[in-house]
């Protein structure tokens, strides 16, 4: 069972969709240029906010403005090449961007047609991510803070009276599912040296094997379980009843051990507050956590997605349907 971390969806699309991150960046720059030219976003304000230590608030405003304001949407659309009418050819701003990067696209770009269909589906999320990532990268290194940001976005949306499908209940639910899957607690061992970790790995061999087995079972469960209305609670139940007990055993063994070494490392290990291994490794916006979550749930997830296309599409994840077959099979098996 393979678990993917960090930049997951970009990583798994690495070969076929190697232009994805460039495209997202190009599109972000293109859009912010339009918005700036139209006086909608004043980055000077952002600098002021930075000085006043209100970056997060400003960030939320920018995210809300870009993602949710229908006027901005139409402005962007008006300034956008309509990809479909051009036969999915790369838009000019992208070609120019790649040229500036010293990576000009070949005339007949074999990946272009396959990637742009995908990109259009996820670009809104990427756009949001890049806004956050560019201006608030360091702020978003903490999962709770990122989650908090999302909540603020939703609150602001509600206050502004936006009813955007991008934050509908289904999406919210998916976020919750993604986050809840990783809310089992893992003791944070980052204070230990690599030598200590290796020794710990050996000392706790049996318990760690149990834990890994439960994690594996969890991934299998998720693979097999149909994604119905009870899916989320079923996953939570599995985590609580199968994974968390194994983690507790690990913690207890450390805390109560007569072994001098285990006791000494127990003093260095951070047990509280709960730390998720994903949170420690993902420094991005919740969307990325969400994507990564899907990946972590086992790439076989696309199998159950197959019979839940409607749900997946409503979450803007249709690209997984296309990407899943073939490339990911090769990746894993």
């Amino acid at each position: 069972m393979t678990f993917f971390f960090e930049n997951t969806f970009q990583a798994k699309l690495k070969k076929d969709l190697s232009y994805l991150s460039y495209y997202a960046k190009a599109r972000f720059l293109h859009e912010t240029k339009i918005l700036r030219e139209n006086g909608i976003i004043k980055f000077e304000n952002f600098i002021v906010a930075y000085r006043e230590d209100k970056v997060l608030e400003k960030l939320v405003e920018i995210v809300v403005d870009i993602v949710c304001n229908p006027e901005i949407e139409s402005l962007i659309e008006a300034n956008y090449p309509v990809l479909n009418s051009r036969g999915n050819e790369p838009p000019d701003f992208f070609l120019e961007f790649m040229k500036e990067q010293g990576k000009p696209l070949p005339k007949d770009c074999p990946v272009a047609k396959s990637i742009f269909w995908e990109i259009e589906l996820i670009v809104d999320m990427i756009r949001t991510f890049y806004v956050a990532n560019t201006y608030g990268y360091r702020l978003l290194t903490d999962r709770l803070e990122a989650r908090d940001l999302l909540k603020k976005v939703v609150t602001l949306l509600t206050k502004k009276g936006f009813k955007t499908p991008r934050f509908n209940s289904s999406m919210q639910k998916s976020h919750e599912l993604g986050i809840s899957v990783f809310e089992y607690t893992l003791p944070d061992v980052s204070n230990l040296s690599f030598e200590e970790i290796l020794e710990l790995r050996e000392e706790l061999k049996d318990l760690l094997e149990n834990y890994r087995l439960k994690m594996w079972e969890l991934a299998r469960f998720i693979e097999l379980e149909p994604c119905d209305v009870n899916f989320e609670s079923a996953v939570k139940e599995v985590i609580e009843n199968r994974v968390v007990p194994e983690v507790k055993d690990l913690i207890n063994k450390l805390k109560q051990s007569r072994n001098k070494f285990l006791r000494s490392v127990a003093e260095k290990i951070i047990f509280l507050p709960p730390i998720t291994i994903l949170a420690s490794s993902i420094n991005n916006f919740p969307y990325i956590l969400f994507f990564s979550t899907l990946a972590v749930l086992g790439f076989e997830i696309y199998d159950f997605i197959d019979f839940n296309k409607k749900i997946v599409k409503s979450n803007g994840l249709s690209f997984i349907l296309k990407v899943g077959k073939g490339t990911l099979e090769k990746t894993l098996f």
Partner: protein
Amino acid sequence: VNTKLVAVYYPNDVIINEKFLKMAALYFDEIVLPNDYTHFLESLENDGELRRFIRKGDDIFF
């Protein structure tokens, strides 16, 4: 059935998140790093034991 847990890590940055690596080293059977991080693996020369369960990404990605 292969029940091995493998953490495939594609860092956002040129610097590998040490915290992640330590966590993964304990909680996963294996870690796979991208090929570009060969230099990192080489720097682990003195941590031979750690290298035992770290692989380069070539064999897993396409």
